[in-house]
């Protein structure tokens, strides 16, 4: 299980970081960085919350 980012679609709204700060963050330029693409089972609900809140649907779980 991993998080996949559609980079061109991401506009840096940062709602995913608020939902899952341990999995992703915006860097100093406001670009999203995935800190852990490969997910443990214990990350599943947090990752789903991040995917859910992305306002432009730029994240998905594969």
């Amino acid at each position, binding site marked *: 299980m991993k998080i996949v980012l559609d980079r061109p679609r991401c506009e840096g709204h940062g709602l995913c970081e608020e939902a899952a700060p341990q999995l992703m963050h*915006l860097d100093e330029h*406001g670009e999203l960085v995935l800190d852990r693409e490969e997910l443990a089972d214990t990350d599943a609900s947090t990752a789903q919350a991040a995917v859910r809140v992305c306002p432009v649907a730029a994240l998905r779980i594969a």
Partner: protein
Amino acid sequence: MSTPPTSDVDLFADDVVVDPYPAYAALRELGPVVRLPANDLYALTRYEVVRGALADWESFSSTSIAFNPAANEALTGTSLASDPPEHTRLRAALTENLTPRALRGLKGRIEAKADALVAELVDQGSFEAVDALARAFPLEVVADLIGFTGHVRTNMLRWGQAAMQVIGPMNRRTAENFPVAGELYAWCAQVTADDLAPGSVGRGIFEAEARGAVPGGTAGHIIHQYLGAGLDTTVAAIGNVVALFAEHPEQLDLVRADPSLVPAAFNEVLRHWPPVNAWGRRTTRDVVVDGLVVPAGAQVALLLGAGNRDPRHYDDPDAFLVARNPVDHLAFGYGPHGCAGQGLARLEAHAVIDALARRVRRLVVGPEVRVPANITRSIERLPVLEVVPA
């Protein structure tokens, strides 16, 4: 698979646009999709199907976001009214200067402006909240952002209002507003970099066009969308903030006690009273929505305001409760066409809510006045009779 139920509700009747929630509740209970002969469209009513349609651009085309053909025709070639792959390129040009990362430099200025304005109004003790705050603040922010000066600045509010009205069906309001929306359209078709203040984002869009970073001829379109989509909606949202905090002082108290609730409070304002309640799409094929068939080529209305009150998704949906922090509300839409200006809207609204929560203990208001409008649901006048300062 079956045919959607039918209702005689008229989504754009005066009483429905002023208070759509009773009609929305009835439609939602009738079905996830309801055919409305009065408007010649299919309404999507429940949270999950509205969100699903917003994500599914292949089935629900944005070439008919407006509810009359002339407005859709006028919007052709904008990111708002196009589908991928063309949309992807237009959206990138539109958002280049509008994403949170592009706006970071403005945050401090916007917060300072909001705080100064709120401080002045609190000092005054009584004021008309729509003119003095809900209109004044976004007008100043957007005018400075785009670099509008002179007569354009004085026209911004009426142009912005008209641009939203004409998205409605071809009723009297739409007909009356087409000439005004046309003034905005004509101005945007001939505006040049020199008309906009040096150093502004608006000037930057023309500079981007000159160096080829934005496709030739689109700078005027982008300015048009900033003004057409970005002003009337934000005015509505900020008026709603004042009205809802006045009506629910215990909710204001929660934000005063815990300022980290400012974003949650804005999410709840947008869920409870979205500035835009209905937005159009057209089906590209026969689409099955929750077991009901919407035929190919049908006009669709996505009822954002009905989805936001769906008890299947939000507990006690008619209550205004900031602590629920409904981050997945539908007021900004969702997906590839999700509101391009939501970063700026958040900056503005968070600044206003934060200033109110720091400076105001209680707002005593008189009755709010509402005027029917096709697309933007906003308060026309809201007298604040007394401010109890913090």
